[in-house]
């Protein structure tokens, strides 16, 4: 079986800092895969490599079978990306943003309306409002709609729920779960442990390295919370580093 996302030894350095250090994992078709880690762990760097915004220093990766270095043009047609920072046009209205992103990919809003309907219907009453005047939760729904409007095969969501209220966050995860029926593979990052449980599988990432990959249930130590497990893993990793030194 071909994996929609296949990462093999991906490394990225910024000068002396190694942001990603030999990261490898695969994500299966239609899977909701979570990338869990603190700020500065390398989550955004991984997203920027996979969405062809940067080139890796070492290693390789494929998205839907296309190489991120050589086949970047194909990848840009089939992925949806929602950056961590709200980056839609704030001075365009809700529907203008949606139309804009649909036609950037050569389509119309109608073509894939079924896909975004459950999400977009919630902000449709405000479709003439400027995107910059929306609340945090509504901005995030619009950004997700815009990332989905060209029916991508793989969706990259970089900390989509940061700065959003608890209710909107929960709704957002319901929406992601709803996308499973369309066979869209989703890679989502979050710093919140409570959200990790909503993913099918998670990878714990710290300091540019993957510590563990498994289902949220299996990854958690018996009798501990996921957060405690994560902290234990980080401490173990640090101790290992100290011995090496």
């Amino acid at each position, binding site marked *: 079986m071909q994996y929609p996302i296949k990462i093999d030894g991906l490394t990225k350095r910024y000068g002396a800092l190694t942001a990603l250090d030999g990261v490898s994992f695969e994500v299966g078709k239609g899977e909701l895969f979570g990338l869990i880690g603190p700020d500065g762990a390398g989550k955004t760097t991984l997203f920027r490599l996979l969405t*062809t*915004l940067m080139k890796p220093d070492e290693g390789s990766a494929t998205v839907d079978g296309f190489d991120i270095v050589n086949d970047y043009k194909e990848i*840009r047609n089939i992925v949806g*990306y929602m*950056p961590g920072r709200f*980056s839609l*046009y704030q001075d*365009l209205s809700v529907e203008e943003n949606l139309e804009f*992103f649909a036609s950037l990919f050569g389509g119309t809003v109608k073509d894939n309306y079924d896909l975004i309907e459950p999400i977009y219907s919630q902000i449709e009453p405000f479709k003439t409002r400027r995107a910059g005047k929306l609340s945090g939760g509504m901005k995030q729904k619009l950004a997700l709609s*815009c990332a989905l409007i060209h029916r991508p095969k793989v969706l990259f969501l970089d900390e989509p729920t940061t700065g959003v209220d608890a209710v909107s966050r929960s709704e957002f995860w319901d929406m992601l779960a709803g996308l499973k029926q369309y066979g869209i593979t989703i890679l989502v990052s979050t710093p919140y442990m409570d959200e990790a449980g909503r993913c099918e599988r998670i990878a714990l990432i710290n300091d540019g390295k993957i510590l563990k990959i498994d289902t949220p249930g299996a990854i958690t130590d018996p009798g501990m919370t996921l957060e405690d497990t994560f902290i234990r893993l980080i401490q173990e990793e640090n101790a290992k580093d100290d011995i090496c030194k």
Partner: protein
Amino acid sequence: MGVLRTLIIKEIRQFRRNPFMPKLVVMFPLMLILVMPWIATMDVKGINVGIADYDRSDISQKIVSRIDASEYLELKGMFADYPSALAELEDGKIDLILEIPAGFGKSMMGTPEKVSIWANGVNAMKGSLGSQYLMQTLLKCFQDIRASRGLSIPESTIETVNFYNPTMDYKHYMIPAIIIMLLVMVGGFLPAINLVMEKELGTIEQINVSPVNRFAFTLSKLIPFWIICLIDLGICMVLAWLVYGLDVAGSIWAILLAAALFIMVISSIGVILANLSETMQQTMFLMLFIILTFILMSGLYTPVESMPLWAQKLAFCLPPTYMVELMRAVYLKGATISDLWINYVALGGFAVLFGVLAAITYKKRG
């Protein structure tokens, strides 16, 4: 083409919603054309003259009153002798000294004595133009005096006739240059600001992960401002005609074609600078430097011919040099496209060169 249309519609919507920009692009040409020609004038007025009159005859009195009446010269004082006048000049209170020798009045009947003019050359323009004005005033005065006494008028007077700008109206000379300045400012800054804003706000990331072609994206940054600049050009030309009575001596199409090429050049330079920088500050600083170089070196204010040779060579590598020469030739002399074909070819070449560079320097992957 569909994508380009989408991108341009987006640019126009954003521009119209901006609370500041639409007003700016109308106010800017109004300000420049209504105010600048009065300031950027080479006419030297208010030249202070001191007279050392050793003669004290009715003739010397006539000269004094003629200078007093002059529009350009201002009589600042009468001095008993040259040294006291020189002291005033050294203090910077007067720019010119006119010395009328004793017995000058009487000598007018036969061979006139020589009058002397001393000029302060610190402000070279004021000094040389001032002494010229003074000489012309004196010559006219002498001719009148001799004529009134039935004497022959000396023929030695030099007469200068200015073609193309007969009244030596510097406003007419400066207006084509001011129009070019406007095109440089609006056409250079607006696309640069727009593009670097997309970088700062992060919106460009969404474009970068989409299949949008870099040429389409670059054109979407050039075309809207190209239209805005042409509108501004129209405003300027109508105002120049209404306010200063300056009509285009040549064909309006010759100006439009040149402007169309020139805006493309200047906007592409703006886009290139925005592509090369990460922040608004970097872009603005680079842009200011380039624009200042353009304005000072392109012959806008000082003729290229009077620059040192190395600077002349440099000036001919700069696109505005061709535009400045062309605009003045078409506006004032009525030159045609075929007269100025070299300028059009140069501008066209620069437009293609910088246009392609603008697209190439846009990197979707950092």
